[in-house]
């Protein structure tokens, strides 16, 4: 049953890993603005569409 020590160590390391990720995310300011990113992620499509249109235009030129 000593395997429990290994299991505990692993589980705590994993947990601490997530905790560190959380701290880094807060430090980077990801929790400062919780609204704009939700809108921003919807924009990518429009930008791509536009760029392709532009490239078509330049090809025709």
């Amino acid at each position, binding site marked *: 049953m000593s395997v429990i020590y290994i299991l505990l160590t692993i589980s705590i390391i994993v947990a601490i890993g997530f905790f560190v990720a*959380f701290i880094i995310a*807060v430090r980077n300011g990801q929790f400062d603005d919780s609204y704009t990113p939700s809108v*921003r992620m919807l924009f990518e499509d429009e930008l791509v569409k536009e760029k392709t249109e*532009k490239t078509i235009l330049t090809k025709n030129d």
Partner: protein
Amino acid sequence: MSKTPCFHCGLDASAAEITFDDKPFCCNGCKTVYEIFSVNDLTCYYDLQASAGAKPSDIEGKYNFLDNAKIVESILDFNDNTTQIATLYIPHIHCSSCIWILENLNKLNPAISASIVNFGKKTVRVTYNCNNITIKQLVKLLGSIGYEPFISLDDYSVGKKNVDRSLIYKLGVAGFAFGNVMFLSFPEYFQVTGFWIETYAPVFRWLMFSFSLPVVFYSAQDYFISAYKGLRSKILNIDVPISLGVIVLFVRSTAEIILNLGTGFFDSLTGLIFFLLLGKFFQQKTYNFLSFERDYKSYFPIGITKLYNDGKEESVQVYDIVKGDRLLIRNEELIPVDCILINGKARIDYSFVTGESEAVSKKSGDKLFAGGKQLNGSIEVDVLKTVEQSYLTQLWSNDVFNKNKEDGFTTLTNAISKKFTIAVLSIAFIATGYWLFVDSSKALNVFTAVLIIACPCAIALAAPFTFGNLLRIFGKLKFYAKNASVIEQLAAINTIIFDKTGTITANKETSVMYEGSNLSNNEESLLRSTLRNSNHPLSRSLYSLLDQHNIVTLDTYEEHIGKGIEAKHNQDTIKIGSAPFVGATAETATLNTAVYVSTNSKYKGRFTFYNKYRKGLSKLFNKLKKHYDLVILSGDNAGEQENLTKLLPAKTKLFFNQKPEDKLEYIKHHQKSGAKVLMIGDGLNDAGALAQSNVGIAISENVNIFSPACDAILDASKFNQLYDFIKASKSAIKIIKWSFLLSFFYNSIGLYFAVTGQLAPVIAAILMPLSSISIVVFTTVSTNFLGRKLQKKKAY
């Protein structure tokens, strides 16, 4: 006539007849913005949200102060002489189109490498190469597409402010530890004896101990500090029993695992702190885009044009202005210091300072006070005093602005916590005393168990969740309160004081009444044609209020500054202006603003301007009069007294000609005799009164732009719902009292186990989260119900 909305900004475009690309525009400014966007392939802007734009304003010369390197340096976040980063506040940001266009600035100017919008704060953080574009050009670019940034004295040296994220860290630590401790304590919940548990229990217990260390010593430190402060000033606030509970939990649990008596209460300990912090976090609803702490600095320009003897102009920082400097104040610019007018025609709008709605004319040699806004071309002035010594800014040296309102206020939670703490301690001592006689080995166990189970987690959660949720509901209804204690104080008020101009009157609207002999059709058309030529604000508003008439071409037209206008058409002459100018006699004098008219040198009559009161004002006052003392303190003259007495309930007290200090003193005086005052105002002139009152609410036509320091901001359109907001706050207090009852019920169950000496960790681990969660559910559901009721009221 059908209305066609402007493709860019949505205003009526039918009159302008400007079309471009088959799309209607209301003005050339909007058309230009559209052109900029279409040339740069950015018309996607309009797909996201129709008519999202704002009219670009003319900002020529306005941002000359950005040539001054010292000012620029103070605004920038980062500067290495090639790359600069600036965070600009743009009040117009309001929809997804705004985010999209501002984050695509690099398409408009390649020197901009990145721009990131923070929608909540309404800021854009722009990174650009300053060799190719200066900040002044950047601001102009933003202005040209309708996103003019707002730069005030507040921005000076503000850029380096650090955000306080400690609550999120503390919450994260507590949540992390809570989850892990819970999982580590499971084995002992289900198996009490046996070889396995005896072998491995110490490992689990010491792991739980180490997880709880950061929770007790880091996450919970605010509670210890607050309890210590409370005890030092001899107040038993809610944090005292909480801290006591936390300390007892930790000490007893540690003792148990050291002496190998049991598993301890680490799960309850971490869970308790996690829930408490969650409540704190929930309550901390902040409106990032609003500022409740504004003083004159947010209104004042950061730079101003200084004139030298040789005619050279230079932008200087306002703090660098010294006595004797000569300044150039442009049209629409704010006068930052007390000064003497030297050159130019001054028409100063003092509405920020005094609440007086009418602009005043000044002539050369007159003294001008800081805070006035020049409305009529540019003027030259000589500085009398520096910014800090000016008349207006001195108001802020009054003590009220350094006082924290929350200090003097006992919250409901703290009021109950006093009795609660005493009761819990007596129960603990009585039970311990009893067990000392019966079975002294259990006495210490019972004593600590009572303190643990009575830890008022549920009580401490009731207020934050109720107020936090109500704060959000109010926010949706455009009533923005600074924090939870504002709602609590709002429920306790008994006197309501209103400012007049801008608060109970609508700012932009006036109604006009004509008194005198009737004007013939010809005269009316002549009047309107004459007014059409004048740019005076009174002429403009009178012109728009008059009926449609044929516009005739005038033979002569002359404007006498400060007096009136004179025009001639065929044989008729007309004079419009002040009483002496048109030859009206003194008996017709009125306190209200009036425009007098005479034709062919014969006095005809006058147009008197009356304030237009907000919709539902009378109804609101009639509802309020049953419960509150109502007072109106106006900085304006008594011209509207008659009108107001007719409109408002008889016992409303009216005071006119009140200076900012008078308002403050009035409130202070009444507070001394026990009044709990709600002050409702709008301008800088109310700032002192808003700070002195128990609750200060600022009314704002546009919540994004101007409001003085206050406790809450109410959107002007919601003014008639004021009573509903007060009523909802009162109901919130009731909800909290019910939650207290609910948590006492849980506490008595827990105390039964504690007093009888049967408190097992598993019972505590079930009871504590159960009571907390049921309180959270109860308060959330009932405040949502309140919110539903509020929203329904809106429909009427």
